[in-house]
């Protein structure tokens, strides 16, 4: 990916009259960190980057925007928000469009074909993070890490994020401007993590999830970082009726995680944000990917692919599977 081209395009986009601001990635404060960059002026586009460290799914910020009440007599700002998207992020945006969470004329998408990002936690475990900012580049089946004047080649598969090993859509499925050349989908692994849990005995599976769910702090980071959890009035926050009690214990945590996973049935686009942000490292991606796979196999529905599709849970087919019904 040519950074100059990216910055030039970003500057051009931001200077357009119909664009409010652009959301992209910029280097974070130290080491491998990457932060979302909100670019409002063309000169600020110089800070933007796109590298294997850009794991954040920026589609979340589309629905997080605060909508303050307007002063009397003023018209709402109808300008677009420009957004840089990877393959998985673009699916999130498309799913948002399908659900009418946002309007198409509200966004301008800059697609970045993505050969796969790193798992930052895994990377800093294997190649300890230092204070100085690091730069990571794609280079065939290696990542080139440049930090403190040294250059290290890291085998791609050793630090590749789990979601990218399972990625089927590396190229943006929807975009207005595409940067760089499309990359080939390289499914490097079967979903062994889900299969591993499925292969367990029922009791072992219950014990497995009990261990993980008991660790949950109920910080709701998984919900807040999810691009598709954007209900203004979330069932998990409600007090009347209290769907899920606020007590932090195994029982309520299970109800919370089942509710969260269930609300993403047929909507999860497997961007892995929930898992990445979890401070307790709960393998939430397994829950989501299991359900996404069942939806794909049993109902032939895949979220975030078809712009004219219908939301999975809002529709039905007369011949939906019903073997489980007595």
């Amino acid at each position, binding site marked *: 990916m040519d950074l100059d081209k990216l910055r030039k395009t970003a500057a051009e986009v931001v200077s357009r009259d119909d664009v409010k601001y652009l959301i992209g990635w910029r280097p974070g404060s130290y080491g491998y960190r990457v932060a979302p960059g909100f670019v409002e002026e063309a000169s600020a586009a110089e800070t933007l980057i796109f590298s294997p460290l850009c794991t954040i799914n920026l589609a979340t910020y589309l629905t997080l925007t605060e909508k303050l009440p307007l002063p009397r007599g003023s018209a709402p700002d109808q300008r677009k928000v420009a957004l840089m998207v990877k393959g998985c992020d673009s699916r999130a945006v498309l799913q948002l469009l399908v659900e009418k969470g946002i309007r198409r004329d509200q966004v301008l998408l800059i697609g970045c074909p993505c050969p796969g990002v790193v798992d930052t936690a895994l990377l800093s475990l294997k190649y300890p993070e230092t204070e100085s900012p690091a730069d990571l580049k794609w280079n065939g089946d290696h990542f080139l890490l440049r930090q403190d004047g040294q250059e290290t080649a890291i085998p791609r598969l050793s630090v590749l994020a789990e979601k990218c090993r399972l990625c089927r859509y590396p190229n943006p499925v929807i975009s207005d401007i595409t940067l760089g050349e499309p990359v080939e989908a390289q499914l490097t692994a079967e979903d062994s993590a889900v299969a591993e*849990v*499925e292969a367990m005995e*029922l*009791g072992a*599976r*219950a*014990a*497995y*999830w*009990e261990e993980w*769910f008991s660790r949950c702090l109920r910080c709701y980071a998984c919900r807040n970082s999810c691009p598709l959890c954007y209900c203004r009035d979330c*069932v998990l926050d409600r007090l009347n009726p209290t*769907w*899920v009690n606020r007590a932090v*214990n*195994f*029982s*309520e945590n*299970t*109800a919370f*995680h*089942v*509710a969260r*996973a*269930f609300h993403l*049935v*047929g909507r999860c686009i497997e961007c892995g944000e929930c898992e990445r942000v979890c401070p307790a490292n709960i393998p939430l991606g397994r*829950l989501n990917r*299991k*359900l996404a796979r*069942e*939806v794909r196999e*049993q*109902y032939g529905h895949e979220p975030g692919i078809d712009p004219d599709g219908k939301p*999975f*849970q809002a529709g*039905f*087919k*007369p011949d*939906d*599977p*019903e073997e*489980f*019904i*007595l």
Partner: protein
Amino acid sequence: MSQQFEPNIVAFLCNWCSYAGADLAGTSRVRYPANLQAIRVMCSGRVNPLYVMNALQQGADGVLISGCHPGDCHYMEGNFHARRRLGMLKELLEFVGVDPRRFHMSWVSASEGHKWKEVVEKTVEDARAAGPFEGFRRRRIDW
């Protein structure tokens, strides 16, 4: 203590078919297990998956959801929606380690008193075989 374990079943019955079906079973003096707590809802499509979670949290050993046959829904398509949603819920519950025998769904029409009996017998039998539900049941703390 030689008594057999009697499971608690929570049943969500649709107002138009299954509740009437259960009523018919009652008026026609059909005997079926009494482990069932029937909750009448207007449609099986009204059953929120969190109801099921809540029932299991609060001490149910099994959950049964029953509605009209596909195509017979009073609200045209409520049970189709329920089928899709609850089918996925069943997958999810099984994945997090809940015995699949604890969760059942059935279609019982208002004239199927005898089918209702069979459904209840099967549900109770399965829940009994699965034993008391301890999983993520809410535990009271006695201070």
